[in-house]
């Protein structure tokens, strides 16, 4: 019985010890454990697998995936970061730039601005195509000139009073439809996601007049194409008290963990500690610094329960991003399967 419990712990939990982490790697492959059938079974997977959305506010999404392995969870994280396509400024045609921001710095900054345009409506640009066509390019114009405000008070030193248009914001970028884009996208409102991104500062007489081409790309190529502010995951914490902990030790234990993890209950007049919500813990491992508590607690993580946190830059809502990521993984698999079928094997 104890041996089975130990085996189960090895299979299901990543244990955080005082000086290291144990059972890190996935070992549940067929043949490793006698008595366990670890071969891939779609039905067994479907029974055990579930997705729970915990929180969805605006651009942030927190959801749980239970029943998958680290390899797959990491694949989704990597796809969210690097392979979900978006539109971003790629080519900047500078007609006039007399500001103190150099052309290439200005172009770099413009590229990093997230553009609210659904990338699924556009195609990738052909390699070697310099001009761009209406199905793969969005054109924006930024034309702004700073001038002096003659009505300003004589002694004023506030730039907001003295000058007009001295701050170039992303709201000054205007969409210039190419070809038949006005017919293709009649209701579309292509603009940067945020209006208040400061691009450059000007003084009277300085002018910026640029034309920008947005193309579809992926984060692998340049980080500006990444659709997520970040996407990360962590494993569900699992805290077990190996012995009952009471009174002062219970108070100390509560302080060792993040607030809300350990709660103290009154049982027959004594204060007893209980694990209330292990999910909230950030695992600072403060417990291991106290000799009296070190051996009374087991810190572990549940190996197949992933808490994903996806924050979008605003181009696509985060649940759409996760769906797109899954579609991309399916597309990759399908592509290789098609190639295997088409090319004969010797």
């Amino acid at each position: 019985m104890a041996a089975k419990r130990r085996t189960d712990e090895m299979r299901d939990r990543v244990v955080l010890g005082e000086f290291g982490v144990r059972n890190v790697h996935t070992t549940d492959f067929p043949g490793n454990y006698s008595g366990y059938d670890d071969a891939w079974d779609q039905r067994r997977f479907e029974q055990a697998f579930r997705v729970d959305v915990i929180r969805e506010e605006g651009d942030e999404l927190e959801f749980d995936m239970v029943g998958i392995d680290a390899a797959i969870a990491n694949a989704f994280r990597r796809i969210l970061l690097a392979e979900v396509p978006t539109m971003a400024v790629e080519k900047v045609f500078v007609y006039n730039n007399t500001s103190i921001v150099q052309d290439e710095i200005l172009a770099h900054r413009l590229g990093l601005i997230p553009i609210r345009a659904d990338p699924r409506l556009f195609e990738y640009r052909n390699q070697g195509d310099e001009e761009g066509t209406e199905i793969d390019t969005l054109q924006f114009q930024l034309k702004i000139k700073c001038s002096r405000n003659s009505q300003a008070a004589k002694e004023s030193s506030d730039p907001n009073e003295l000058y007009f248009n001295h701050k170039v914001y992303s709201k000054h970028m205007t969409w210039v439809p190419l070809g038949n884009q006005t017919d293709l996208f009649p209701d579309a409102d292509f603009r940067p996601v945020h209006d208040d991104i400061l691009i450059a500062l000007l003084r009277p007489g300085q002018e910026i007049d640029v034309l920008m081409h947005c193309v579809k790309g992926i984060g692998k190529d340049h980080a500006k194409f990444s659709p997520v502010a970040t996407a990360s995951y962590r494993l569900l914490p699992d805290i077990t008290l190996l012995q009952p902990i009471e009174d002062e030790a219970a108070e100390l234990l509560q302080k060792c963990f993040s607030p809300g993890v350990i709660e103290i209950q009154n049982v027959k007049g004594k204060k007893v500690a209980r694990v209330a919500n292990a999910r909230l813990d950030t695992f600072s491992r403060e417990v291991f610094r106290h000799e009296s508590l070190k051996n009374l607690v087991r810190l572990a993580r549940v190996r197949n329960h992933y808490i994903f946190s996806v924050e979008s830059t605003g181009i696509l809502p985060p649940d759409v991003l996760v769906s797109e990521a899954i579609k991309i993984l399916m597309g990759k698999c399908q592509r290789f399967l098609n190639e295997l079928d088409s090319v004969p094997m010797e």
Partner: protein
Amino acid sequence: MSHSNGPARATSSALKLSIARTLEHFFSPHSWQVRTGGNCITFTLLNEDHMLGNALQYMVMKNPDVEFCGYCITHPSESKINFQIQTRGALPAVEPFQKGLNDLMGRSMKEYRAQREEEIQ
């Protein structure tokens, strides 16, 4: 650059253009090269990295007929992986590769559906 599609179908020109562009972007003529000796096979998958490599390795290892499966990135400056499968006995090694891809697709499909159900609620 040739597409390995089936026979040409009568599609609208816009759709054809769209398909052509997507294929050209992702599809290179030698997406995989193979060295094989029956029950051991090494694929070189171009334009891939840990994302597909690790996920596919996990799915192939779950196959009880597979004796060895691993992937490596030959050089970090080149985006390609060597993916090797070795099977017990006389099973041709391409089969676990196909099965692994199908399983990964099936798994993604299930996750997609589960995610969509979550969205609806």
